[in-house]
């Protein structure tokens, strides 16, 4: 018999096939299992995500990953009370595979389907790590594809997008600077590694949208394009002069600029909106400078910072099960079976 408190979450917005099971308790949401199959090795050959390859991998991984999750949690599929799935944003083909699978499960099990927002899932997953959210939290979601600042009054019903990147996402800026420096894809981890041995104060790269003139319109927005161009021109000037590029210092100074802007703007937003809890999620929250700086600055500002362990920051089914559980907990209506995936789903839309 279906158990209404048991939620199965499916995530396929990019290149990880994630299936997780969450159990809703009165005072917490418990993660029972989080199974992930990744096609990232296939992509590494190609230097990044190729949508068609990811979609093919999702199709092959879907049933085995569901079975693995059920087996590890010792749960029978018939006990699942609701199915949650990423409806967007993300890659259309991969999203389509997950949505079709979730719909078939919902039809086959006779249980409700909940299409939810991937980016908000990156925040919601922390409810299973550090407990249910207080009334109001700020969420900074930073990844290869997103850099967004969200004011979360209710994670299932009331999310306001305060700001986002106007050009490159933080992770994307890292990858592009990685290109400039001749590092392999993805550049993020390489720059992070180089940066640890460099001087973050060596080069004063610009902090995008922090000037007084940008405060009115773009106080909560990010821009990393100007920073990227500055790094490009700095490197070009050095090359033109026949000088060697100090990779460690460039990486450290660049990473410092990104972490500085992200944390300064986020903390300013917390103050402005009188929020005392900050959640940081998304794959880029693995970045060590961001973690260190956010922890230090939040402590100084009296803000509680919640950053889930790295395995819950990257894409996974747990984030979708967590958000699905939040939706079910509030008794929200099911999504229609004809729900369409949405590659550019607005971040104010939690459910479909």
């Amino acid at each position: 018999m279906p158990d209404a408190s048991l939620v199965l979450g499916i995530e396929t917005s990019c290149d990880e096939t994630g299936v997780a099971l969450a159990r809703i308790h009165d005072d917490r949401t418990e993660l029972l299992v989080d199974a992930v199959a990744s096609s990232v090795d296939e992509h590494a050959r190609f230097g990044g995500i190729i949508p068609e390859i990811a979609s093919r991998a999702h199709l092959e991984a879907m049933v085995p990953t569901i079975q693995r999750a059920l087996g590890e949690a010792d749960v029978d599929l018939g006990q699942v009370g609701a199915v949650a799935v990423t409806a967007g944003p993300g890659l259309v083909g991969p999203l389509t595979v997950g949505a079709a699978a979730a719909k078939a499960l919902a039809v086959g099990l006779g249980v409700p389907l909940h299409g939810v927002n991937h980016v908000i899932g990156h925040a919601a997953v922390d409810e299973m790590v550090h407990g249910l959210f207080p009334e109001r939290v700020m969420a900074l979601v930073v990844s290869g594809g997103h850099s967004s600042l969200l004011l979360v009054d209710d994670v299932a019903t009331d999310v306001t997008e305060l700001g986002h990147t106007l050009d490159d996402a933080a992770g994307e800026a890292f990858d592009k600077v990685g290109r400039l420096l001749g590092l392999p894809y993805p550049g993020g981890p390489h720059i992070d590694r180089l940066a640890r041995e460099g001087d973050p104060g060596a080069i004063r790269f610009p902090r995008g949208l922090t000037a007084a003139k940008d405060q009115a319109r773009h106080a909560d927005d990010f821009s990393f394009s100007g920073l990227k161009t500055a790094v490009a021109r700095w490197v070009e000037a050095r090359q033109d002069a026949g000088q060697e590029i100090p990779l460690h210092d460039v990486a450290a100074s660049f990473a410092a600029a990104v972490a500085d802007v992200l944390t300064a703007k986020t903390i300013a937003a917390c103050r402005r909106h009188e929020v005392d809890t900050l959640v940081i999620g998304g794959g880029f929250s693995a970045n060590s400078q961001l973690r260190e700086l956010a922890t230090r600055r939040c402590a100084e500002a009296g803000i509680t910072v919640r950053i889930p362990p790295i395995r819950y920051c990257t894409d996974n089914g747990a984030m979708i099960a967590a958000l699905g559980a939040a939706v079910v907990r509030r008794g929200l209506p099911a999504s229609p079976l004809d729900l369409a995936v949405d590659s550019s789903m607005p971040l104010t839309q939690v459910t479909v």
Partner: protein
Amino acid sequence: MPLLALDTSADICVSLVADPRPGPWLASTLGTLASRRVVEQRRHAELLAPMIEEVLGEAEVDRRDLTAVVVGTGPAPFTGLRAGLVTARTLALALGVPVHGVCSLEAVAAQALTDLDAAAEVLVVTDARRRELYAARYRRRDPATPRGELPEVVALDGPLVDSAVALQERGAAQGATVVGAGAALHPEHLAGDPEVVVDPAVLAVLALRRAERGESMPTEPLYLRRPDVTPSAGRKRVSG
């Protein structure tokens, strides 16, 4: 004992089929209880699940009474085909019933051969986009199968993907009746009857018979094309 059969290789179609065993497998006794067909190139993942609910509702069949799920494995353009396959696989998982895959072109061939002579051959062509066709040539497996009875088929050529011109040049259609939606696309090179399309009930019958013979019917997709986005060979110039 109903089966659910679906195909997303061209149109999106779903049929609820009464298990007609024991045969004979007359086309007139396929026993379709309810069916839906939508002619759409996209939106497969949106439309399919509601169509499944509709056929179950119309025939007043409880999903828990389904005995198997049958799915067309293509060949077909990627996104829509995957929606059908993942739907069939996960639905079967949820219901705890087997899932059977049948090449979509074989269903078209079996249907076309039903009313042709014992020795007849058909070339089935469907739209592969990019100005190409999926094609496969078939005949009856057992020439003794009487006319009017849905025959098991055997592939003589294909399935493959190629342009209509190339198919014409290699004589793919010579001596065969051309059928399938692809026959309407390049009539100057390959003309035939485009009205013969996949009937999920035919997929279901072929699957049941193969199950009786103990054949395995994997649901692997027939993409017939590699993921055509190839990686960048060298480093591009990123600096000005």
